[in-house]
C-alpha cells in the first residue's frame, strides 16, 4: 500500500543564458516569465532565477563587450530542457545559453521554490584585465624552474 503512490522523479538542471546588455529590467522579466511558464507547464518545477547582472565578457559576445547573465535552476526532464533551449534560441535578445544536469532522481517535494535573486554585476570602471597581480602564486621559483614556462612572458 505504501508503494501505491509513486512520485514522479525529476532531474535537476540549470541553464545559464546571456542576454544583450542594453535590455531593460522589464524585458528581462519577460524572458524570465517565459522560461518559468514553460518549465511549470511541461511538468517541471521551477526553483530559482539568479540574475548575475551586467558583466564584462572575456571576449565580445554578439558584438557587445558585456552581457547580462541569467541563471535558471529547475527540475524537469530532458524533453523540457530541449523545449526551454528551443525557446531561448528563438529569442533575439538571448545571445548564448548553456544547460547542465546537476542531479538525477530528485523528488520534487524536497526542493522548495526560492525567491529570485538579483546581483549587481560589474561596476563600470572596475574591470580588471585578465591575469592581474593576484596571479603571483604561479611564479616560476615555486616549481624549481620547471621546464614549463618557456612560453610565459
Amino acid at each position, binding site marked *: 500500500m505504501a508503494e501505491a503512490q509513486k512520485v514522479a522523479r525529476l532531474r535537476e538542471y540549470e541553464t*545559464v543564458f*546571456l542576454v544583450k546588455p542594453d535590455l531593460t529590467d522589464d524585458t528581462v522579466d519577460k524572458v524570465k516569465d517565459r522560461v518559468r511558464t514553460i518549465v511549470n507547464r511541461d511538468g517541471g518545477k521551477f526553483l530559482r532565477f539568479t540574475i548575475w547582472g551586467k558583466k564584462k*565578457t*572575456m*571576449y565580445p*559576445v554578439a558584438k557587445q563587450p558585456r*552581457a547580462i*547573465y541569467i*541563471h535558471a535552476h529547475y527540475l524537469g526532464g530532458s524533453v523540457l530542457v530541449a523545449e526551454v533551449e528551443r525557446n531561448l534560441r528563438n529569442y533575439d535578445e538571448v545571445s*548564448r545559453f*548553456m544547460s*547542465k544536469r546537476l542531479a538525477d532522481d530528485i523528488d520534487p517535494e524536497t526542493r522548495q521554490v526560492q525567491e529570485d535573486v538579483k546581483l549587481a554585476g560589474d561596476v563600470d570602471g572596475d574591470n580588471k584585465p*585578465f*591575469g592581474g597581480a593576484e*596571479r603571483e*602564486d*604561479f611564479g616560476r621559483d*615555486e*616549481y*624549481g624552474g*620547471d621546464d*614549463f614556462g618557456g*612560453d*610565459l*612572458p
Partner: protein
Amino acid sequence: MAFKESKKSDRGGDRGERGGDEGDDKGRGRGFARKKVCRFCADKNAKVDYKDQPTLKYFVTERGKIIPRRISGNCALHQRAVAKAIKQSRGLALIPYLVLQG
C-alpha cells in the same frame, strides 16, 4: 618470504622520503620539487564549478591556456574536472579562449 617483505617495506620508505621534508631538498638537483597538493582534495568543501570564475582563473595562464597538472598540482580526477569546467566557462565568456598581448 622474509626477503620479499623487507624489500617491500624498503620501497615504501623510499617513497615516504621523497614526499617528506620540504625545503630541505630544495635546490639539490632535479626531482626534489616542493610537494604539491591538489587543492580540491585538500579542501573537501571546494567544488569545481564552471560558474566560479575567480577559482578557475588559478588554473589558466595569463594567455588563457590551461595550466598542466604537474604545475597546478591537481590530482588526475580534479584536473579533468577543472579542464572541463574551464571549457564550459569559456563558452559563457567567463574565461577567455585566448588573450592577445601586444
